[in-house]
């Protein structure tokens, strides 16, 4: 075999086998030769005087022998029968991001990370295999070291050992009613090093906007206003646009280049009696929009002690404190505010005003964005502790008992303050305002499981059974007050408020008990069956229906173990899988409340003094039978390893979600006026596939690892309540941007269809129905021609159709890493192909009606007699034709190719550092989010959203590009 590396153990002396597989090397008698080739098991052979050593390397199936977490237990990777995806901790740690979710981007087919925006501290959301609910929760369940939690923002990516994603219901059903969105199992690092190791890492980065909006300057703005008025026969407003020059660039005024610092270290040690790992991490990140920042300190300690040979206890404790300043997110306003307005009032007008009132009033209803930033005092302080104590007892060989208590306590306090200020009548606050909100959540979990594993000849059998008890409490207390005696920092507390007090508070409490079990059976390592079962009783379920069962079953056939494929030189491993299971999409607090008809406050006046009194009346119409949404799914998959270098995984699935929660209209005599009733009435299907191919190889010390994954998950509303539709997303200029109705993907875009621009009056008059009725009597040359889709001679709401779909044809991720003699280079790319996005700023920024600023170039491209075109209508202050109504004019292809990370590192050779007793010293430079290729007009095509309103850019806070330099070393 060519290319095998042959090295004398403990040295860097070595050679490589030639094309015939021959090699020669000079050795001492007591040397040991190390034969290695990527994809094969490394072999060590003592020379012991031999002159010829012939070596036959065996393919490395360690990868398949790998043990993976599957929820309350482990399985060998090769024995898996469900659809799982995994990521090693080092891939997670490699990324220079503050949260684990972001680091998963592009790693696993079918696991999409949807950015929540670039504001520091924002958690992206994770979607596994598309959406699984329309009105409910789409987030996966996180299970950290066997304890289910709904939040992982306290985890430092460097503390992660590995992550498993349970994608299909056959494997996730052990988590039952909460696993509708899939499950992410996170195992944190524990002590593994037999000598005390001490790792240090630090980085410094600069964040910048990836794309800057191209806004019209004051001159162009004035030209647009002038022409929009002239086109309607009105006087021009700005006689000399050129004299206005550039004006204010509001984007520059609100954005900045922002630093990020991170520093951390960890200790690691293990021996026969105990193992311990402890980590510390600090991160400080400012936002690229002024006024937002994020700081987090993390501390973790994970330890396990062997009390006796068959008894261990351990504790894993994580403390996390972070502080976030939430900016006012002025991206939306900074686009729209007119450039002819200066940021600040002239000096002489500032006299006598407080520091929040020195800003120029604007012409439009958009308030001065810099003023908004300056009076933004919105901070949140989180303190989270995650404690996980366990006891493992091997009762007899093959029978293990595990008890685990997890306590997740999270408390956070939000402080909010608005100073009194006056910019203009429409932008003022006469009295200051202060509020504070305190939240405390306690989530206690107690797992007790018994696992029995046994092998008899060709039969491999295991059974796990357990009881999981959970209790959840969320306490909330809110207070607000007005009219502080001053705006000073030290006065911004409720005690100082003088009027307008209001308070609220509540306690939410849930509890559940689950009986869980898993049975696995394998015959001759070829035929594998897994059955999972979760029977849960929960306070969340209706009293009439307090217990639910979630089964999952899957089977696999390892074809490569069959004699006809064994020792095949092409196929190293081949497995086909099939699985079926059911999951629940647990009710949210709102749904639980919707079960009851509660009493709300009503006000009425009475008495000679005409006093307002508080009365009461039923508020809603409860539905006592409200239950969880059920996700049912079928998965078929193949795992294939080829030619020692390729791993291919292919899965196809169909999810059917039944009993989906929607609000339905009810007869008025039930007393709720326009209130609707929540009920389990919808059905949705999600169909898709996932495909992953990875390739790894090594040539003369050059290692290459490439992994490409692609996935599709397309949802369709199969049933809604009697032709009902759910509309979402309104602003001043576009209504109901997202439509959800039967037969379509939830949240499709639905609007009018344009058919070019009228070039002359004749074509306006000729745009008629078959009877000659003019369809657009208000139109003029330069206005859009809209299609009368139903040919009824009227242009109205009936002439709308689906004009875009927010779900891509497919998503993909590409991971490339390579190394050569201490130099490492890695890249992560993600992308999505063929989906529609709506830049909700365009109705403002392209209308050219002078109310708001425009994108640069709107003036030049607009239709006018001298510039006839068929794409962009004329400028008008009136827009009698409603050119800028919701139409396909706004639909844009959101396809993008994003480089998430590119990183170049260099590890100093051991000979330079060993004297300093440093075992590893790496320096690196990296860029997070260096580029996005996309034709989208907004700042970033990946805008996320809810199932009923996706792909709508509301002046989205863009994810910055971060340029980092960093160092890590190990003692």
């Amino acid at each position, binding site marked *: 075999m060519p290319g095998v590396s042959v090295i004398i153990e403990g040295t860097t002396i070595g050679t490589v086998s030639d094309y015939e597989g021959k090699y020669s090397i000079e050795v001492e008698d007591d040397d040991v030769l190390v034969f290695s080739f990527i994809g094969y098991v490394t072999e060590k052979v003592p020379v012991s005087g031999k002159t010829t050593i012939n070596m036959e390397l065996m393919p490395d199936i360690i990868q398949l022998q790998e043990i993976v977490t599957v929820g309350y237990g482990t399985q060998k990777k090769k024995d898996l029968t469900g659809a799982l995806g995994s990521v090693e901790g080092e891939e997670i740690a490699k990324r220079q991001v503050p949260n684990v979710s972001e680091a998963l981007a592009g790693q696993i087919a079918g696991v999409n990370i949807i950015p929540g925006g670039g504001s520091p501290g924002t958690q992206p959301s994770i979607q596994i295999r598309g959406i699984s609910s329309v009105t409910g929760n789409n987030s996966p369940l996180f299970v950290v070291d066997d304890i289910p939690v709904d939040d992982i923002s306290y985890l430092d990516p460097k503390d992660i050992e590995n992550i498993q994603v349970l994608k299909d219901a056959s494997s996730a059903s052990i988590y039952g009613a909460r696993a509708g969105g899939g499950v992410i199992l996170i195992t944190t690092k524990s002590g593994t090093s037999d000598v005390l190791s001490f790792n240090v890492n630090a980085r410094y980065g600069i964040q910048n906007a990836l794309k800057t909006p191209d806004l019209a300057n004051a001159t162009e703005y004035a030209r647009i206003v002038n022409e929009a008025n002239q086109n309607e026969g009105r006087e021009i407003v700005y006689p000399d646009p050129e004299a206005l020059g550039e004006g204010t660039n509001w984007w520059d005024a609100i954005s900045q280049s922002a630093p990020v610092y991170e520093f951390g270290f960890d200790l690691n040690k293990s021996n026969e009696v105990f193992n311990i790992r402890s980590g510390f991490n600090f991160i400080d990140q400012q936002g690229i929009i002024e006024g937002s920042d994020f700081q987090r300190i993390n501390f973790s300690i994970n330890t396990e002690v062997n009390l006796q040979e068959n008894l261990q206890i351990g504790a894993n404790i994580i403390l996390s404190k972070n502080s976030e300043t939430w900016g006012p997110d002025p991206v939306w306003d900074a686009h729209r505010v007119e450039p002819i307005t200066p940021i600040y009032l002239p000096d002489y007008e500032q006299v006598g005003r407080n520091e929040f009132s020195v800003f120029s009033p604007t012409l439009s209803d958009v308030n001065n964005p810099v003023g908004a930033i300056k009076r933004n005092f919105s901070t949140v302080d989180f303190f989270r502790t995650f404690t996980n104590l366990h006891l493992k007892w091997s009762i007899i060989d093959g029978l293990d008992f595990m008890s685990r208590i997890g306590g997740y306590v999270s408390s956070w306090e939000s402080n909010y303050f608005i100073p009194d200020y006056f910019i203009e009548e429409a932008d003022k606050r006469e009295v200051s305002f202060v509020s504070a909100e305190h939240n405390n959540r306690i989530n206690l979990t107690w797992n007790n499981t018994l696992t029995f594993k046994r092998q008899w000849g060709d039969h491999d059998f295991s059974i796990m059974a357990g009881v999981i008890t959970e209790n959840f409490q969320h306490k909330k207390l809110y207070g607000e007050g007005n009219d502080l005696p001053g705006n000073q920092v030290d006065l911004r507390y409720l005690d100082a408020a003088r009027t307008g007090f209001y308070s609220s508070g509540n306690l939410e409490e849930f509890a559940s008990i689950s009986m869980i079990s898993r049975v696995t059976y394998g015959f001759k390592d070829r035929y594998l069956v897994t059955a999972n079962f979760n029977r849960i009783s929960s306070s969340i379920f209706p009293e009439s229906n307090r217990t639910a069962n979630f089964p999952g079953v899957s089977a696999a056939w390892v074809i490569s173990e069959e004699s006809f494929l064994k020792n095949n030189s092409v196929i190293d491993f081949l497995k086909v899988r099939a699985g079926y299971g059911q999951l629940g999409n647990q009710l949210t607090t709102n749904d639980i409340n919707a079960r009851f008809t509660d009493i709300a406050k009503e006000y*009425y006046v009475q008495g000679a003094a005409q006093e307002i009194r508080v*009365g009461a009346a039923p508020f809603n119409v409860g539905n006592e039978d409200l239950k969880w949404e059920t996700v049912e799914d079928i998965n078929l998959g193949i795992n294939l390893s080829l030619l020692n270098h390729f791993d291919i995984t292919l899965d196809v699935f169909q999810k059917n979600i039944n009993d989906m929660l929607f609000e339905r209209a009810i007869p008025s005599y039930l007393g709720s006026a326009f209130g609707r009733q929540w009920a389990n009435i919808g059905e949705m299907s999600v169909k898709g596939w996932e495909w992953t191919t990875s390739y790894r190889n090594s040539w003369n010390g050059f290692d290459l690892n490439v992994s490409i994954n692609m996935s599709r998950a397309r949802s369709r509303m199969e049933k809604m309540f009697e032709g009902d539709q759910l509309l979402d997303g309104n602003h001043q200029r576009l209504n109901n941007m997202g439509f959800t109705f039967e037969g379509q993907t939830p949240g499709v875009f639905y609007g009018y269809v344009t058919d070019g621009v009228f070039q002359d009056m004749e074509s306006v008059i000729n745009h008629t129905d078959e009877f000659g009725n003019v369809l657009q009597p208000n139109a003029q040359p330069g206005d859009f021609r809209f299609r009368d889709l139903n040919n009824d001679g009227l242009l109205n709401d009936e002439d709308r159709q689906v004009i875009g779909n927010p779900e891509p044809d497919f998503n993909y991720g590409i991971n490339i890493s390579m190394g050569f003699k201490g130099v490492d280079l890695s890249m992560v790319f993600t992308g999505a192909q063929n989906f529609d996005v709506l830049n909700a700023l365009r109705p403002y920024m392209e209308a050219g009606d002078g109310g708001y600023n425009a994108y640069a170039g709107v003036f030049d491209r607009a239709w006018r007699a001298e510039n006839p075109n068929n794409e962009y209508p004329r400028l008008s202050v009136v827009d009698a034709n409603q050119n800028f109504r919701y139409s396909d004019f706004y639909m844009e292809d959101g396809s993008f190719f994003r480089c998430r990370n590119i990183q170049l590192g260099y590890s100093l050779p051991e000979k330079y550092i060993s004297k300093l007793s440093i075992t590893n010293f790496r320096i690196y430079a990296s860029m997070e989010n260096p580029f996005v290729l996309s034709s989208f007009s907004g700042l970033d095509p990946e805008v996320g959203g809810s199932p009923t309103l996706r792909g709508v850019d509301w002046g989205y806070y863009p994810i910055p590009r971060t340029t980092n330099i960093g160092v890590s070393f190990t003692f």
Partner: protein
Amino acid sequence: MKMIKNTLFILFGILVLSSCEDFLDKPIKGKQLVSNYYSNIDEIESAVLGSYATLSPQDWWENDFFYLVGDICSDDAFKGNSIEGDQRDFGNLAQFNITPQNEWLDIKWKYMYQGIYRTNLIINRVPDAPVSEELKSKYIAEAKFLRAFFYFELVKNFGGVPLTTTPRTISDEPLDRATESDIWSQIEKDLMEAIPNLPLKSEQPLEGQGRATKGAAQAFLAKAALYQNNCPDAETYANQVVSSGEYNLNDSFDQVWAVNNPNGNGSIFEIQNQYSETFDAGSALPTVTGSRADGGWGFCTPSSHLENFMAGDPRLEHTIIKEGQYVDEEHPEFDTRPSENESGRINRKYYLSFADRADQEAHKRSPLNHILMRYADLLLIHAEACSQQGKDELARASLNAVRARVGLPEITLGGADLLNAIYNERRMELALEGHRYYDLKRTGMLEAAIADFVDYNMNRSTDQYDANNDKGVLFDPNKHYVFPIPQSEIDLSEGLLDQNPNY
């Protein structure tokens, strides 16, 4: 070892046992549920107050706006605001371009049934509450009064509607329409059962002012009888109000709708309003009907037809504000903004001077009470009922009492002329208070009135503002004596509810 084992098994046992119901019983906190409400005097008092609130829920569109329909669907007023897209469906009502999809009909329907549901709960739950019989009957009487009012509103707009006297749940069988006479019977039954347990207006404690009284129930009984052409009963019930001596016409006409005269001498029942920013309380009508040049929205503007009809009547200046007219110091030449006002006029009864408006500019709430029944209305009911029975003497007495307040000479007519004079008096006395369309309907004069209105506007009128307004040309006598049942309600009934004819 053994000890550990035993301990574990005990723990395991405890755990399994702990799966008892207590652990899973987590009721909702911080909220009262309807299932165990109405259990003490405070809760019942609050619930009754909550039923009154349905008369005028918080937002302008929820109920206040529909009180204008009685005027815009008659010859007294137009939609008003001439911006076509501004409340288009409201304009469609005024034009008799009415479809079952009209949102205002849906809104009216929904809020009336919300009130019925609330009162049904009280009437059905209070009997089991641990409070004194006296209090129970007082609260139930108020609830029945309100329920009757809500059904009255439904029947006069839609005819027969689904009838329920119990709080229904979604699992109950769907309800079909009851006949119109079933609804009237229920209204009369509720009012008659309420009367013995309601106080006289004078007995009402100060803090209870504005709530239902015996007189109010009797007055609505009289009106209900008149709507059914049951003149003897109408006379009887009206007489009971008159003879109670609780009401008079001592307030001068300009004080009837004065903001500083809530529940005045002639007030029998009115919606109580107070301006409050915190509670979003107050009547929206002054803003909704106000001039668009004066912080208003310009809806329901009076017609020149009405103005001409009232020519020379002293009540005219307290009924209509015309473009350019002197109103008060702040409005020496009133601007109705004719470019956005269909008739260059606004309703004076809902007009508030600057001093009486809420602090905030153009705020849509005000403290003006909304009168639903007043003594002049009752006297004219009495007059009409008597006249119909040939009791001209009695009829004239009531009619002339109303005229006397505003200094008009006595009417000495008799027979059909007297009845006609009573109808004319109703139009003038109660103009723009939301009665006209319903009065024309019930007296069978709607078709002729609208025909005359169209003819006047299109052919005879020389009015600067509303001449040639073709409102009413779409009126169809086979259709427009009732409004259509909201389509959404028919859809939800899966076809059980029949639509009114010709819609």
